[in-house]
């Protein structure tokens, strides 16, 4: 019987591709021979736009990259600009940033587990995880007024202090989330269907993972013990006590376990940060960079002028270049900012973790069945808004 290779188009509108990703798959029967990803459907030119906006105006653009983890994008950006300026941030602002960043990790991983499980047939987890995610979204709304495009951090600190009742709400999350994680594990970890779909799927060795530039939980799932929060700490992460989970079998199941442990560790980090949180300033004492307090803007002409100057002209940043990478839920999110001494970045480069991770998809899925490709997309935890920027 004659056989031939079939070319199948998957996406760009497909529930399992997590956004507008198009994959052209060449199949021999059901076995994948070649995958050609097509990306760029969401390309908005954020790097180009940043060259024409002041440093504060660039900040909201970063929300719109990885829209499942907006505060992490903000964090990387403000840290990069602060590094360029040589600006130090008050303790309270650092702690609040860590709390929000780890809540963001929870939020992002909850979407990951929900969609990943739904993709390969476990619908209940999806409903539970989205219910919990809503609680984190409520906290987003409390601090920033928005559920997704938060724009809460500022160069030099935070846009406003935490609202009343915030700490209590966070404490409720800390008390209840570990139980929810147990529920997810109860639904999945010993579920035969889940095990058959994930064990031995999307295997990539540690050497290959490094070669392909894979970062974040996917790298740790392949047994590489590296986490930027612990190994190249930023924003005060060196003062927290947390474990970095590492996988052994380099497959989808190990990446699942790594992410679940990460969520539990995030809860611990938030708990430690909350205990250390003391009243204090939330913005650095740098009037040439930071917005003045709102009381001063509303009640004095000097404050109003100050606010207006910062909002319209921005602030000059000394000439130089920095690369600041943070451990985004997806991997290493790096900002490479070149300043020519002006009030806008001369060049802002975003090193997108999902983009680089997606580059390994053919390596991970070649030779497996078409249905397993869906599990590989889920385990890579990609966000197209950040891949295309």
């Amino acid at each position, binding site marked *: 019987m004659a056989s031939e290779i079939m070319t199948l188009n998957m996406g760009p509108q497909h529930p399992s591709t997590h956004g507008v990703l198009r994959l052209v798959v060449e199949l021999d029967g059901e076995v994948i021979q070649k995958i050609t990803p097509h990306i760029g459907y969401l390309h908005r030119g954020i790097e*180009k736009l940043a060259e024409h906006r002041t440093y504060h105006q660039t900040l909201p653009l970063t929300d719109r990259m990885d829209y499942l983890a907006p505060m992490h994008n903000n964090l990387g950006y403000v840290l990069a600009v602060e590094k360029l300026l040589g600006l130090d941030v008050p303790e309270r602002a650092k702690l609040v940033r860590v709390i929000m960043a780890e809540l963001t990790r929870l939020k992002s991983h909850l979407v990951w587990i929900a969609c990943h499980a739904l993709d390969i047939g476990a619908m209940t987890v999806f409903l539970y995880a989205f219910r919990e995610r809503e609680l984190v979204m409520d906290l987003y709304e409390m601090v920033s007024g928005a559920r997704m495009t938060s724009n809460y951090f500022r160069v030099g600190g935070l846009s406003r202090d935490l609202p009343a009742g915030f700490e209590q709400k966070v404490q409720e999350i800390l008390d209840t989330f570990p139980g929810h994680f147990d529920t997810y594990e109860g639904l999945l970890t010993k579920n035969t269907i889940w095990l058959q779909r994930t064990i031995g799927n999307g295997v990539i060795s540690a050497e290959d993972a490094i070669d392909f530039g894979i970062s974040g939980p996917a790298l740790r799932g392949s047994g590489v013990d590296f986490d930027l929060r612990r190994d190249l700490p930023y924003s005060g992460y060196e003062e927290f006590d947390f474990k970095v989970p590492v996988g052994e079998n380099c497959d989808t199941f190990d990446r699942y376990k790594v992410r679940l442990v990460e969520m539990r560790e995030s809860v611990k980090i938030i708990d430690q940060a909350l205990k250390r949180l003391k009243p204090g300033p939330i913005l650095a004492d740098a009037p040439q960079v930071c917005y003045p307090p709102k009381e001063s803007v509303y009640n004095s002409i000097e404050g109003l002028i100050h606010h207006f100057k910062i909002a319209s002209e921005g602030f000059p940043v000394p000439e130089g270049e920095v690369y600041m990478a943070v451990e985004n839920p997806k991997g290493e999110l790096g900002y490479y900012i070149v300043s020519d001494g002006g009030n806008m970045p*001369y060049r802002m*480069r975003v090193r997108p973790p999902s983009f680089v991770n997606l580059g390994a998809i053919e390596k991970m899925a070649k030779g497996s069945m078409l249905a397993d490709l869906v599990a590989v997309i889920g385990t890579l935890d990609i966000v197209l808004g950040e891949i295309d920027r």
Partner: protein
Amino acid sequence: MAENNRAVVKLKERFADALLEYKEHRGEVTVTVKKESILEVLKYLRDDLRYNFLSDVTAVDYLGQEPRFMVVYHLLSIPNKDRVRVKAPVTEADCSIDSATALWNSANWLEREAYDLFGINFKNHPNLVRILMTDDWVGHPLRKDYPLQGPDREPYKGRLS
């Protein structure tokens, strides 16, 4: 100080001719090398100095300066937990550089993006085609002389305010 950085010390010994500049700014070490030697330098950094992870490849357009482009590599050493930035100048007339895909597979897509948005040709790249823009796109959007509003539009002259 940059002189004491382990990468700079070794590169000064091994690649004295190729090393154009080295400096440290905000705790980050940058070495600039001739583009002809870029693969040898990267290979040496990867194999002998254990900068085993290629984080990023990108470019910067210094329009009006010569050479116009700077190709920037960010290397990370997972065992040593440190970074180094390697830069190589590329002129507009000969807008090409050797591809790092021979050393890292991660360079594949990153170089395609730099080609797409800056028009830098990476020699010996296995599949140097556009990645973010459509295949029939004309021009390279991240070049400084490419109008912000898109092709066939007035160049951006700064904000009106």
